[in-house]
């Protein structure tokens, strides 16, 4: 049996990159819908149903970071940003807007596919496809349902992206224990090497904004821990 091909929304203004990357992703097992600018991307997103959005930072009409923000207003879909290492501030802004990961241009087809699959696996795992134990984790008045991708703080539901849910699950399963950025990059993002620690830092900030600032402690030089 073959798993259904993941649906990718690919928003990129350069026509050659759009065409070749779409072709490549098709050969690597994805179904790709392309859009040439931010406005068209937003319309395509609203019209269709996708598993992951792959968004270039520099886009005409609506730029990539604004597009990510607009997508996040209504959806917790996985979002991967296409950026460059030479634009470090763009990367941070994109992650703050809600992107789950980013891939630097120029990229390797297989590396891009691997990143997309990693973020999709987070969605699957979060929805219980990998047969997680399904138990609700409780830390003080924080209740986390790893399968349902939802958390409750003092009874109030908090909506989390799949990456935030995975990150919080990892922290909650090791409550009171310091997890280093390298460990979190490996367990949540599946980066063995060369993962960008800013991914962890920005996601921790976003988690704090959602569940309360003082629940996650930064341990200087070591990493983060969820306070019991």
């Amino acid at each position, binding site marked *: 049996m073959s798993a259904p091909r993941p649906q990718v929304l690919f928003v990129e203004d*350069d026509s*050659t*990159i759009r*065409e*070749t*990357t779409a*072709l*490549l992703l098709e*050969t690597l097992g994805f179904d790709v819908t392309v859009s040439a600018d931010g406005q068209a991307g937003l319309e395509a997103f609203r019209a269709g149903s996708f598993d992951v959005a792959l968004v270039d930072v520099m886009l005409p009409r609506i730029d990539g970071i604004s597009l990510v923000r607009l997508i996040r207003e209504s959806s917790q879909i996985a979002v991967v940003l296409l950026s*460059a*290492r*030479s634009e*470090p*501030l763009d990367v*941070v802004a994109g992650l703050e807007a809600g992107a789950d990961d980013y891939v*630097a*241009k*120029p*990229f*390797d*087809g*297989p590396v891009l596919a691997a990143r997309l699959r990693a973020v999709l696996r987070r969605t699957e795992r979060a929805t219980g496809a990998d047969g997680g134990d399904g138990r609700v984790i409780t830390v003080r008045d924080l209740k986390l349902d790893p399968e349902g991708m939802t958390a409750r703080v003092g009874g109030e539901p908090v909506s989390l992206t799949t990456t935030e849910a995975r990150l919080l699950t990892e922290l909650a399963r090791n409550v009171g224990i310091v997890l*280093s*950025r*390298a460990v979190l990059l490996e367990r949540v993002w599946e980066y*063995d*090497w*060369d993962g*960008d*620690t*800013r991914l962890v*830092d920005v996601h921790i900030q976003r988690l704090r904004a959602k569940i309360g600032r003082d629940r996650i402690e930064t341990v*200087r*030089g*070591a*990493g983060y821990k969820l306070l019991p």
Partner: protein
Amino acid sequence: MTRPWHSLRWRLAVAIALIAAALSAGVGFAVYDRTASDRLTRARDAQADRAVLAASLLRSTGQTLVGAEIDAPNAPLELRKAVRDGRVATYRAREPRPLVWGGAPLRGDGVGAGVYVRESFAQDERALHQLRDTLIVVGVTGTAIAALLGVILASSLSRRLRRAADVADQVAAGDLSARVGASGHDEVARLGHAVDAMSEALAERLRREQRFAADAAHELRTPLTALTSAAELLDDSRPAQIVRERVAALRLLVADLLELAQLDSAAAGPPTLEAVALADWLPALVAERAPGAAVELEQPATVLTDRRRLERIVGNLLDNAQRHGAEPLVARVEGDAISIRDHGPGYGAEFLGAGPQRFWTAGRDRGAGSGLGLVIASGHAAAIGATLTFADAPDGGAVARLTGLGAQGVAA
């Protein structure tokens, strides 16, 4: 530091002191000589007048002037001879006491006795001695003050010159932010301004070149991204393989150029410090990047550093050793120092003399790498405050050594 006699400060100070000494000696001698001869002339004139007065008094009244002697037997011989010859004369005697004698003949025809007077010259000599002592004291003091002023002036001059020279050295060593910051309008200040202007012009030129490289790499990225994807879609024929290979090399080069541009512009953002246990970290990195290399651990430390940069440094060193060196590769941790060694031909004298340079792959396997890996490694090392040194091992092979990571603790 230069030897003292090579220093402008001492040369100037000595020259000024010598001039001051010569000047005060000359002036002092002239003043003393003039004063001494004046005093003597006055004393001689006075005694000559007295002698003439005494002679005419004796002739006209027969009275002897007080202090005058007729035919004084103790008068000097030369004086008496001159008076006997009918002349009015004076004589300066030094022994036994300083005296000035005057003598005049009694009769106009020069025959017979003369009248002699004398006056002590001791007081004048004392005054002259005092004058001489004063002149010597003034001269010596003046010379000392001149020498001191010379040292101060020359010190300031040479300090300012040395500052300009130091800054020029710093600029030559690569610190383009070094500035003299001279104030004033004299020649030394002009030199300082000129050095600053030169360093600023160099920095501007370097900035322009770096910007160009960054812009070029930036612009290459978009077509290259498409090219990479397209190349991956090609079949497995030999030409397609070559295209894929070369595109990969090009991608590496552009990525390295962009990384370098980021290092140059220091836009990498604040570092995230993290505790890295080298005992776990290095074997894992080596397994990923250079599986054939041996790992040696000797009291491996835990360091607090930017893990990403550390990975870039050691990863690039491993890549370089694999590309240009020869087996066996050894990655070694000693405390908080990491060294990567291969057993190839080594870096060579040219590389070791100049350090890592951009695109320096001459004489090596050109095309295997971007030629930027070691430059990038050095840049990251500087950014995390560590030192990266390169050497050739005496028994062959290149050794790159990263030190100064700052141990946090040593793992047992």
